[in-house]
């Protein structure tokens, strides 16, 4: 086993394009759950409409990529309104049930035969990222010694980390403003906030839209990164990964989702590489081959369980905010 190459792979995935994309979607979830207390279990739905926003705009309507991004944002806003108008006045658990259902319904609609002309049905869409690749200013990859990236990865990373930075700045400014104060008040007790003359529904709607837009941008980048979108990339487990990342990093903290995504991808790759290394020298007694991939998830799950027990606020969470809740 080559420990340096294992570490290098893990590090590469922690700062690579996928980690950045998940961080962006997790920032959206942090807006929903971390700050506002909205139980959104359908963040993947926003990612899906975001990915197809670009793909369909470019392929079906021949629009430029930047217009595709605008379409992604518009789709996220529409989805947030559809989801929020009926449910945000209800108790928190109704939103949870609806989000998970709506995200699945959206996926099934996009893959349905009737939508094939627009979305490509189960086959999805390919070849919409050519314009994005053509604009890539990097001709060579980047070799930092311990990690290296291909030119195409670098181009996605620039955009993904750039958007993560922008989203983080927006979130920091908002959450340190009176707007953020209302949002945090709603997380704790919306009746109290309402009694002080704030339109709670409107704030929850704004939160849902903003977090959904971040999710859609992440989805658009997934499409550009993989050069293809299919509906079945957007299964419910993507949302649960995002939740795991957010809780790992620390919900309700500016850097929580970023650190969570990086740590999660680091751990996933680390355990994957270690298990594969052990497997290759026949050191794994009870399993091997295809089971290795499942095993790494079990180990990451174990790490998450330990984290919840010993550090429930996450890596950068605020213990004071977690614990002060005496009635």
């Amino acid at each position, binding site marked *: 086993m080559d420990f340096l190459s294992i570490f290098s792979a893990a590090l590469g995935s922690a700062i690579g394009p996928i980690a950045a994309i998940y961080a962006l979607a997790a920032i959206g979830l942090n807006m929903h759950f971390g700050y506002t207390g909205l139980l959104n279990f359908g963040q993947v739905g926003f990612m899906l409409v975001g990915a197809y926003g670009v793909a369909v705009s470019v392929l079906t309507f021949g629009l430029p990529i930047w217009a595709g991004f605008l379409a992604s944002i518009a789709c996220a806003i529409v989805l947030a309104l559809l989801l929020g108008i009926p449910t945000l006045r209800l108790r928190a658990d109704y939103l949870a049930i609806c989000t998970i259902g709506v995200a699945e319904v959206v996926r099934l609609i996009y893959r349905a035969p009737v939508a094939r002309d627009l979305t490509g049905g189960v086959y999805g869409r390919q070849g919409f990222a050519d314009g994005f690749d053509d604009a890539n200013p990097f001709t060579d990859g980047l070799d930092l010694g311990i990690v290296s990236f291909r030119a195409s990865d670098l181009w996605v990373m620039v955009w993904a980390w750039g958007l993560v930075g922008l989203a983080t700045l927006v979130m920091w400014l908002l959450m340190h*403003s009176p*707007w953020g104060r209302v949002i*945090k008040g709603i997380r704790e007790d919306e009746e109290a906030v*309402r009694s*002080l*003359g704030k339109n709670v529904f409107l704030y929850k709607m704004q939160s849902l839209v903003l977090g959904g837009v971040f999710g859609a941008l992440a989805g658009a980048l997934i499409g550009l990164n993989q050069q293809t979108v299919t509906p079945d990339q957007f299964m419910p487990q993507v949302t649960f990964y995002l939740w795991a990342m957010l809780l790992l990093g620390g919900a309700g903290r500016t850097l929580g989702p970023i650190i969570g995504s990086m740590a999660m991808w680091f751990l996933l790759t680390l355990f994957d590489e270690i298990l594969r290394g052990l497997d290759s020298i026949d050191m794994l007694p009870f399993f091997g081959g295809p089971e290795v991939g499942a095993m790494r998830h079990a180990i990451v799950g174990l790490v998450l369980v330990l984290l919840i027990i010993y550090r429930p606020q996450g890596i950068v969470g605020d213990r004071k905010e977690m614990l*002060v809740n005496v009635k």
Partner: protein
Amino acid sequence: MSSDPTDAAAPDRPVPDRSAGIEPVPGVAKPDPILRADGIRRSFGGLTAVDVDHLEVQRGTITALIGPNGAGKSTLFNLLTGFDRVDSGQWTYEGRSLQGLAGHQVARRGMVRTFQLTKALTRMTVMDNMLLAAQGQVGEKMLGGLLRLWTTQEAANRKRAIELLERFKLDTKRDEMAGSLSGGQRKLLEMARALMVQPGMVMLDEPMAGVNPALVQSLLGHITALRDDGMTVLFVEHDMDVIMGISDWIVVLAEGKIIAEGCPDDIRSNTQVIDAYLGASHDDPAAATGEDR
């Protein structure tokens, strides 16, 4: 009768008695009502929780709403402030109808309520609790917050919040989490926060419940001070000594209906009230302090 600030005043009652001369009968008209409600009805399943034919609250007074547990006091508060929906009925505040308005819209009109179970936002600082209550903040709009257009307004609000906190002796706690305050201090904070809205009328649901006796006196002082500042106070309370001591007017609710109204002396001698409420509470002290939902 109403508001003549130059009226000669007894030293222990610096404000003219604005409810003097009103006849002590349920649903009686007041000379200058700030709140006027008609036919307010609300039932839960088969239970009629509130059934108030007519109620007026005189401007600038402390009006107590009393009644046994489950009489419908909190429900009436919820209905009037837009936190629950009436089955039927109309009501006006400052002459304008509040019917169908949501809770936040009622608060913006100037009628602000507190809750029986204190709703201090425990994971926010005392100062943030206060600042949250200020009205018309540009920074509470998404774009205004993002572009930091709010700093001067915030400074002014902070100044006002500190003045209020000083008045309620909470200024030393301003940077602490509200969750670290004692139960009584939270009641004080909730009241200070309601005042931060700059209301014309405050509705306090059991402001003294669970407050340690040493703090009760200062809470009472605050409530009378509110009236002396020209505010109208409607409050729910169980402790008879407290009620008789500070109220200008008392409304007695039983099984959702107003069974009596009057100044403290009228209520003390009203046999119906004694039967329905005072009798029980005098025989059984637990009933007077007993908690409900």
